[in-house]
């Protein structure tokens, strides 16, 4: 038995009202908002956030594989899966891979994880799909694309859903793409692409996996699919012969946009939340072909199956005040105001446990937990008996400032001193917040964010955000 044992969902707090896009360029936009990665977020940080939620109930030592899926990795060359694994404090001896190329990558990574566990190559694989796909200003896709991440644990326990079968096709078909020169996702003849590409391939793989397993269209409890837009999903349901109203997982496109490689997994999360033991669920995605996976919901499925819950992940949105802020935060307009600083990879490598895995030191003599890692205890001055200790990522603000002078893309910037649960005090930037959320006693959680981008090399570190 192989399947899904945990799901974590992360949606950035920032939202762009589509009316602001319409106001900027004229013309019409559909109602609603799109989720926008904050100025210090990218596909890598979204992935870390989803992974942390997914792993809340797991000892990191039990994970022996991590697959990262994205079409918008911050790097063309540099593996992101291993960065996510390190930020999650996973062991070194794990299998990692990046899946990319098309928005099918999320389902491809899930499929590969299932096979890795089936074959015995790995026992428990974390799949993380994350995207913040760029759209050109004034393009049709600008109001459509949104940002999110979903993480899924695949193992032999299949607590939430058991894998049954899969089907795939692959053939060159140009629909959406982004070349090395493109500044945003490109698209060609949507009507033809949907009817002769998307619907054809998706209906084929979904039909095949259902037929092969003898699942009739009336028996399918939920169809979870990535789509170029919400309307196309309706057409697909019709094509497959299922009742769109009751069996098609409702799209979140109006609330957060179409999120790319995590989209089918986000739909899967919603499906698992609505399922009961034994329900048939198909998850499928398109991109130069298509792949569909059939799952049966397990005993753990139901309303509390997903962390923190799909709706809860959408809670407490922060509206971007202007379209211009969106252009600035996504670095479409203007320059990064932070001075160019290249962090030495010598320092990075030497301090990985402290800065990325976020370990401090516990004094064996007096018990004080301290950060950064100490050579001599800050309190009792002991030289011996100091042990590395993993810091908790939740705490309370001890003191703060809101700094208008600090060089940063977002002004003003909160800086906070946080006392962490189970000890240790850190001094970090505040993010994802309004100025009045920065106050003494406020509960915060640490979140892995882009710190600076000197020399085209992104550096990541922990910041605090309201809990």
């Amino acid at each position, binding site marked *: 038995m192989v399947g899904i044992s945990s799901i974590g969902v992360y949606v950035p707090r920032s939202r762009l009202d589509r009316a602001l896009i319409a106001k900027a360029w004229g013309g019409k936009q559909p109602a609603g908002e799109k989720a926008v990665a904050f100025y210090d977020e990218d596909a890598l940080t979204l992935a870390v956030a989803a992974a942390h939620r997914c792993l809340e109930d797991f000892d990191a030592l039990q994970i022996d594989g991590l697959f990262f899926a994205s079409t918008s990795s911050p790097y063309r060359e540099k593996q992101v899966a291993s960065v996510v694994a390190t930020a999650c404090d996973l062991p070194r001896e794990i299998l990692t891979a990046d899946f990319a190329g098309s928005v099918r990558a999320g389902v491809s990574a899930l499929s590969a994880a299932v096979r890795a566990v089936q074959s015995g190559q790995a026992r428990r694989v974390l799949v993380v799909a994350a995207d913040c796909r760029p759209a050109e200003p004034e393009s049709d896709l600008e109001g459509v694309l949104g940002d999110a991440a979903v993480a899924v644990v695949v193992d032999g326990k299949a607590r939430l859903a058991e894998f049954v079968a899969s089907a795939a096709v692959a053939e060159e078909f140009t629909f959406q793409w982004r070349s090395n020169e493109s500044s945003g996702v490109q698209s060609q003849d949507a009507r033809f692409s949907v009817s002769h590409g998307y619907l054809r391939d998706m209906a084929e793989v979904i039909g095949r996996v259902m037929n092969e397993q003898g699942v009739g269209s009336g028996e399918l409890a939920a169809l979870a699919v990535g789509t170029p837009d919400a309307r196309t999903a309706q057409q697909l349901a019709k094509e497959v012969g299922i009742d769109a109203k009751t069996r098609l997982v409702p799209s979140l496109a109006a609330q957060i946009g179409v999120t790319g490689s995590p989209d089918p997994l986000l739909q899967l999360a919603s499906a698992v939340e609505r399922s009961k033991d034994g329900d048939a669920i198909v998850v499928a995605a398109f991109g130069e072909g298509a792949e569909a996976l059939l799952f049966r919901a397990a005993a753990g499925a139901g309303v509390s199956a997903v962390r923190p819950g799909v709706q809860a992940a959408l809670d407490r949105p922060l509206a971007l005040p202007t379209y211009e802020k969106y252009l600035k935060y996504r670095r479409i307009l203007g320059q990064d105001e932070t001075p160019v600083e290249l962090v030495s990879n010598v320092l990075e490598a030497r301090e990985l446990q402290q800065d990325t895995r976020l370990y401090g030191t516990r004094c064996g003599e007096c018990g004080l937990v301290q950060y950064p890692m100490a050579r001599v205890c800050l309190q009792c001055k002991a030289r011996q008996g100091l042990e590395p200790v993993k810091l908790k990522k939740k705490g309370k603000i*001890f*003191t703060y400032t809101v700094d208008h002078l*600090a060089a940063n893309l977002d002004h003003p910037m909160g*800086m906070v001193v946080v006392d962490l649960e189970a000890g240790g005090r850190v001094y970090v930037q505040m993010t994802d917040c309004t100025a009045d959320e920065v106050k003494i006693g406020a509960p915060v959680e640490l979140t892995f964010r882009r710190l600076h981008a000197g020399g085209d090399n992104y*550096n990541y570190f922990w910041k605090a955000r309201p809990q």
Partner: protein
Amino acid sequence: MNSIRDKVAVIGVGCTKFGDLYDMTYEDQVCEAAFEAYADANVDPSEIDAAYIGTYLPHAQGGKAGISLADPLRLYDRPVTRVENFCATGTDAFRNACLAIASGQHDIVLVVGSEKLKDRPGRGIPRIGHQILAKGNTAPGLFALAANRYMHEFGLTRETLAKVAVKNHWNGARNPLSHLKMEVTEEQVLNAPMIAWPFGLFDCCPTTDGGAAAIVCRADIAKRFRDDYVLVKGAALAVATGRPYFDPTFDYVGFRSTQAAARNAYQQAGVEPSDIDLAEVHDCFTWTEISNIEDLGFAKKGEGGRWVEEGRTRVDGDKPINPSGGLKSFGHPIGASGVRMIYECVQQLRGKCGERQVKDPELALAHNVGGPGAVSCVVVLGRQDA
């Protein structure tokens, strides 16, 4: 512990005008301050046995060496040492000069503080420190962490902070050498653009150019140079962690480095805080002055704000604080500030300060704190009859 009390005398001081000294080089500042001190002490440069330069930023020609003092003054063939210790740089350079005399090694020692912040792009002070940890800190932001915690603990308000700025601007407006020579109202301070909450623009000292100098000698030969020499009663330095924001045991309502340095300096001088007639303290931000007067033992912890409210720290109050105008109004060229405070204390003890003169002082105190709270230096000076 041996005290340096009454072993070292200040026989000469000099100070440039402080401000945006766009027409002066670092060398100009050093020379102007040093030659004024030579003249004030009636000392020939050839008589200087050793010299200390307090400066924070690396010097364009001299780098991080004593050369940055020796070259402009042509002070060769003798020891010249560069001292750098955050914002306590100036007072620590002075302390080292005093120790050099008290050790018996040297008879006459020059100490100069000079800083050229306005030659730097941006805001004068380059970012230093770890590339990742604590990124985003600024000087006002770091002190604001303490101010906000203090205000949370003791209910201090921005209105009281503003009164510190009003007082120090009043003093500075009466000082011919100060950077910001204008009075401000409480409303102006409160309505100024925000820098780092709770500090608005007028809660912050400016970035300033300037230089100051002092000449110290063996007390037993001071009479050769002038009658009204001033005696060093005590000089103490103390450090605490440079990363207080990572210290889970830190209460953030005061600085232990100041408390420790003050205890030590009073002990050397054989005096109590109540004996001090005036103090030049490190008011880099308005809140810092309030905390300082507590950490120096003048007011009890939590009561500094009330002292300000009651006017006790004005020139005509019972504990005049920063009659010069302080860093707030006089300006803060980092390494120069401490030596500039010695200059003010000496001029006050000589009774030469005009409208801002404190009435008949016998003991004066100079205090720097940097880091924030990482390093603090306290110097007590007294008249010969003190």
